[in-house]
């Protein structure tokens, strides 16, 4: 190999390489048009279904919850009414904190697993479970919440949020937010045909309660802290963008105080009278409105429920479209 290159070769190769790289980056700046996710056409019933169930021993939890989920889904029509063969399903539980399931700050892993399993049975091509955790490193949250293990066992994909895949989206009709970075997986049609939101019901210091509508904050990126100023209309704004097809509220254990992080078993309500139930509905506002009653509020008392109702995202009267209760 010749060691020296002439001035001419240097210039030539320099220009060639430079043009090549520039061309590449120019090409990469083209974004392929991707259609946004729309609500999935479905023939689910619009009514709100509450399934009660209790456990005596900790070991029964898995099987009881599975039973509760399958009865609940059946009552609103069945999973096959929502998920068709070959669909990509995204399940969004609350895995925000690094705590064990009994502290009731993350969604019950068995609820997630049961839903994922039913989606796979209904013929889903791929079921992914993910959340944008509040903890900086998602690993411990995924492990300690028990969701990673439970979901992987039934064959779902468990993925961490990748910081580079947030993209700014316009919020049509946003009251306070014009646009905000959302996570691609929840937003694009080719990533998600069906989006199932699986929040846990808990007290929240800033928004008072954290349930279905608040859980969508795990689908966004950006400076999430700044949302907390004037949080109620902002939560409604975010829900104008995400198209959640089904909401399953986990109220098997509910956190009554010191939310959203909890950490004391004394603050967790396990009573059959107040908790120990799952709520199923296609309408997130109705779900939250029902959930508020478990904490002694009405839907109207909570700002973001009121705002979301005002924005036409759902019905604040959860009995309006029908109401059913099942006890196991």
């Amino acid at each position, binding site marked *: 190999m010749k060691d020296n290159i002439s001035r001419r070769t240097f210039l030539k190769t320099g220009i060639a390489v430079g043009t090549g790289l520039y061309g590449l980056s120019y090409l990469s700046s083209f974004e392929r048009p991707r259609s946004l996710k729309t609500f999935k056409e479905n023939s689910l019933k619009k009514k709100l279904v509450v399934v009660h169930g209790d456990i005596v021993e900790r070991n029964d939890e898995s099987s009881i919850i599975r039973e509760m989920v399958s009865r609940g889904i059946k009552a609103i029509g069945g999973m096959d009414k929502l998920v068709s063969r070959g669909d990509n399903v995204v399940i969004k539980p609350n895995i925000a904190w690094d705590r064990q399931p009994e502290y009731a700050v993350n969604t019950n892993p068995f609820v997630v697993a049961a839903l994922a399993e039913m989606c796979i049975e209904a013929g889903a091509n791929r079921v992914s479970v993910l959340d944008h955790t509040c903890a*900086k490193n998602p690993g*411990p949250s995924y492990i300690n919440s028990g969701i990673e293990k439970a979901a992987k066992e039934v064959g779902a994909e468990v993925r961490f949020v990748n910081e580079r895949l947030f993209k700014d989206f316009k919020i049509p009709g946003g009251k306070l937010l014009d646009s905000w970075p959302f996570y691609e997986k929840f937003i694009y049609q080719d990533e998600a045909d069906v989006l199932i939101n699986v929040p846990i019901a808990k007290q929240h210091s800033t928004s008072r309660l954290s349930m279905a509508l608040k859980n969508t904050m795990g689908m966004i990126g950006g400076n999430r802290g700044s949302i907390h100023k004037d949080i109620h209309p902002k939560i409604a704004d975010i829900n104008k963008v995400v198209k959640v097809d089904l909401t399953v509220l986990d109220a098997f254990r509910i956190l009554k105080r010191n939310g959203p992080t909890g950490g004391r078993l004394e603050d967790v309500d396990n009573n059959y009278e107040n908790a120990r139930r799952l709520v199923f509905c296609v309408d997130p506002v109705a779900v939250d409105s029902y959930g508020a009653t478990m904490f002694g509020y009405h839907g109207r008392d909570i700002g973001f429920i009121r705002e979301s109702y005002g924005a036409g995202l759902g019905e604040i009267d959860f009995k309006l479209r029908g109401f059913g209760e099942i006890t196991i």
Partner: protein
Amino acid sequence: MTGNSNVNIKKGSINYKIRLAVQILVFIVFICLLIYADPIAEKDGTVDIFLRMSPLSAIGAMVAAKEFIIKYWPAIIVLAASLFLGRFFCGWICPLGTTLDITDRLLKKQRNRVSYKIYDAKRLKYYILAFLLLSLFIGHQMVGWFDPISIATNAYTIVIHPYLVSLINSFFNFLHKFYLISFVSDKVHVFINEALFARQAPFFRGHLIFLIVLSAIISLGLFYKRYWCRDLCPLGALFALFSDWSIFKRVVGQNICDGCDKCTVDCKMGAIDDTGKKTQAGECILCMKCQDICPIGAVRFTSKQPSEQVVPVNLTKRGFITACVSSAAVAPLLSLNFQKKSNGDFGIIRPPGSIPEDKFRAKCIRCGECMRVCKTNGLHPTILEADLSGMWTPQLIPRIGYCAHDCVLCTKVCPSGAITRLPKEKKKRLAIGKARIDRNRCIPWVGYARLPDLDKNWEDVSCGVCEEVCPVPTKAIHFNTYVHGNGKEIRRVYVREEACIGCGFCEKVCPVNGRSAIVVEGIQPQVMTSEIGMLENDLFPVSVEDWKRKGKSTVYAGKDKLFEYINGGAEVYLSYSFIQVSKAVYAKKDTDNSVKVDIWEFGSSDDAYGIFAKDRAGQGVNIGNEASLYENYLWVWKGKYFMSIEPYRGNVSPDDITFIGTAIVDNILAGKVSLPAILMYLPEDGYIQGSSRYFHKKIILDNIYISDKFIDRNVLNLSEQTDAVVADYKSDKSSLPFKILIVKYSEKSVAEESFKNFIELRESWGEDSVKTDTLYTFEDLKGKYSSISCINSFLVITFLVETKKDSESSINGVISRVKANQG
């Protein structure tokens, strides 16, 4: 590799190949232990095994900390093995050595041009060793900066791994933009990320500094192979000094060696002399290369080296003395406290489980292992925050990463025990720092300050992200909600210092741009926080016969909450170790009568007594440890608790009050309790029962009449650390009692300073003093006497005494009691 491979190699060396295999294997283990440090440490694996193999850091940590560290057993084994195997560690195990072998190979071509251009100072490493060891005795542990294993760990943790991961990430992020390629590349990316165990690229402050250090070490390889090992490494020098009894010494068959010079040229340590026959045992790292390349197989490694082949270590007296003197000069220079902070408290946050600061510096070998495993990437090396001598010790920088509540990884990987192991339950309550709110930046506080503006045009200024993420189960951050005239709220945040564990999650998430509005400052030593919120209900029975509790009790825990409860006068309670107060109201059935009960909890029973004694009145009653009843008000002291019961509505008789009081107090558990120790120094003669006041801070003394003039300055240096008691005494000459004050200081010097201060103060009032020995007596304008004396760490003062004789005899009474108890 070999330049002239046309020379037929008669006999390669199997030993060389074994060594190569072992070296590669060991290196792979080292790298894997670093990459998979997190999961391995989680399972209590010994991630730090390599670091613990270094006798140099073992000696450094042990001597500097003046204790034997059992964790360093591998180092002892290595050192013992070196007695018989020479510098095998350098050639076979040392990860820095392996790294340099690799980079030297890459630099081969360049080396041909500049090799041997600098002095091959083989003796330098011995002087560095002497320098480091001597500085240990002067009290500075600099060993960590020179330990090759620390350097290797740092190199891979702080420089190579982050650079590699971010390179990979940016490459795949670029590919991700191309639709067709991204199908494949994204999967590869996920796989690589999972294999490298890096979800997000770690980042370490000061990585550039270490890059420069590492580059320097590597580029010295341009001059000589393994320049670091042959000329600089103090660990190598240590091994070399121990290598005399090695059973593997290089021996050359004198008669068959044809002096081809190959081994001399190829020896990376320069251990072989020009003839190829003599070997310096201390330099040979047993790489077996010479045996491998010798064309006639004349090299063997045996225990007996013919004396004519020995080259002894050649140290000069001058060099040694220079090393010692420079060590003695440099070590104190390094410790120059240019931060001008007293008592070594720099406010930096050490990892949880860190031992007290000076011990920490002595033990920490600056290896960076804790930074490697930190799950949130929050631990970073200090640059100058902990002074030069504390450089490269770990520090939590919350704005980059907080201390995860449920994580104890860093405590598990520390090789030297600078970070002690902690069980998770304990770690969750260990305070490594305290958060403070900057009210000039905090969104709700700034909003509150702008109330007049807001009044015209209201906008929401609530935030509370810090409260939301606070991992303390009962929350160390609380809201104090201000309700404006228009019904809108501003939720101002407060930190409950006693509950705050200083994890820094709040600082991390604070949405204020740039510097956080809530900042965590490190505390030394780290302390356990107390569990708060246990008073609630437990101490207040639901009913006492006819009296029923109205609703739940209300708890006010911590300083800020106390201000909410009693705005004026809270300082009095805070001058004792206030923890919390809870309030409940009991109402009698079918009547309008109700009473209010407050139970105060303090840090010690002494302090609870102090509050009880502070303004007791009326007659003593037999409830709790001590109690007094004045009309229908009752005050009770029991253990760490002080309880007050007072009528709330209607007609409540003293009997009702004592009845409820007894019932509630019986509910409180307290062990054996005694009066504060300082009370025993009070003389019994003339003591007026129930007049003693026990306190710590000046604010209490301010409310006691001791002289006509108000003492503005804290001349007596009263603080949390001082115990003080003041009591009334009957006087024969006057109807008014006089007072005796006894103060006990934590140190004698403070007592003496206060003694001087007080005398100066009285003299500045223009009072005459009479002095006998250490006893001063002053006469004030009204003709009352006041005496002062100081003994050990005690200060005794009398006030308002009628005669000089009484005054002095009272002082002597106390002094004799102090002497009796101390002697």
